[in-house]
């Protein structure tokens, strides 16, 4: 399966399709961190929310980069389950690099200030930032996989799933939302990270568990749909 992950990463980078999400990621970083100094935890919390659509988009682009017939050839070579998993893993690998840049780049640029009394330490802030980005990445890859051509079959349906999912992720995550459980708790996580003092650790566990549950549901749907849609 690693060889298929590697082949797909190669195709994604060589074809230049990685450029668009790369530029989008840089724009997000510029918007989030360009306006002055902020404490680590809230800055990273909102960065993770903004990266959610970027992760979803890059996943769809990566999965769609491969021609349909090549995807079927890969399916014949490694089997349907591993073929379906390898695409999501390749997207997660690219997304992890994005996460790393999103965490590290603001530091030398002076966008993150030291903690004030009552705020979590710098190290804790960065740790929470990493967690928020990883949760956002998992959810983004899930949404992007559901929006991929292999599942949606048409361009219009694919874009509809991607855009609706990305917008709902934010809108249904707002305070007082009617159905917050429908979407991964990205906004809730960002709010928790922005609170002074930080909410108890139990709340963060709850948010992580919620994301994992949401991702499990989405990836199960993806796996089920991909069984019959090659």
């Amino acid at each position: 399966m690693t060889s298929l992950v590697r082949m797909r990463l190669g195709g994604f980078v060589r074809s230049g399709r990685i450029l668009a999400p790369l530029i989008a990621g840089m724009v997000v970083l510029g918007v989030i961190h360009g306006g002055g100094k902020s404490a680590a935890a809230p800055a990273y919390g909102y960065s993770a929310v903004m990266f959610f659509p970027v992760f979803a988009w890059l996943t769809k682009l990566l999965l769609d980069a491969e021609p349909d017939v090549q995807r079927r050839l890969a399916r014949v070579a490694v089997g349907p389950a591993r073929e379906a998993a390898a695409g999501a893993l390749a997207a997660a690998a690219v997304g992890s690099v994005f996460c790393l840049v999103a965490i590290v780049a603001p530091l030398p640029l002076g966008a993150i200030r030291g903690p004030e009394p009552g705020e979590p330490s710098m190290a804790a802030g960065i740790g929470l930032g990493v967690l928020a980005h990883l949760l956002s990445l998992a959810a983004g890859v899930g949404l992007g996989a559901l929006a991929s051509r292999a599942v949606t079959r048409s361009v219009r349906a694919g874009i509809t799933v991607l855009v609706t999912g990305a917008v709902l992720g934010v809108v249904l995550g707002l305070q007082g939302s009617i159905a917050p459980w429908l979407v991964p708790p990205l906004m809730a996580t960002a709010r928790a990270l922005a609170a002074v003092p930080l909410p108890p650790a139990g709340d963060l566990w709850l948010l992580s568990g919620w994301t994992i549950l949401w991702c499990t549901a989405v990836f199960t749907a993806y796996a089920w749909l991909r069984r019959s849609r090659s």
Partner: protein
Amino acid sequence: MRFDQVHFRYARRLPWTLQAVDAEVAPGRTIVVLGRNGAGKSTLLQLAAGVLRPSRGAVRDRPAVVGWVPERFPADQPFTTQQYLTAMSALRGLRGTTEVDRWIERLGLAEHRHTRLSALSKGTAQKVGLAQALLRPPGLLVLDEPWEGLDAHARTLIPEIVTEVTAAGGAVLVSDHRGEIAGLPDAIRWRVADATLSTHAAVTESVGDPSDDVVIEIAVRRADAERAVARLSADGHRILGVREEQPR
């Protein structure tokens, strides 16, 4: 390997592409699938290869290594011939480039080794498609119109490769609407029509002494040529050639 009451349709609201397919593919045999364009030959082959999943029924006991040569090789990929075949051999769990080099040589792809797939001619791309299916000796080789776009030399390679695969105990499923199968020895013929597969017509290559055969020359309208060839070969006749009518 066998098809067990396999039904298939591309979407719930569409009519069945294939219905109640019951058939067996024995190791070491070559099966030629005949039928008109759009009859469902490709669908049947993709079900055999495991590319498509039956809507109902099942394909059982599929060999572990399946080679599938699609009708059109997906050349729109940012790899060179060598890079692509090396990646595909890694997918098959092979290390090193021994097999890749062997097939590049054998199929005459050496001068295109470092050419991008998108820059290859149709026939050359088709050879890359053939090579990727053979990197590991397949227990089932599925060839979808493998003659499409190949030059005369490469055309003779197909029966050769088919013979090697069957000699090693593999089964071969090949679709053909042009009647090029005259070169395949011992082939069983299946026919797809009206969403059903008939294997009972399984006319094997005429067993009689070829010196007992007579040659009939017939003229067919150009538009009907493909159909006539398919129908004649389905009836077990050998197609010796198709040519332009010579001016008298």
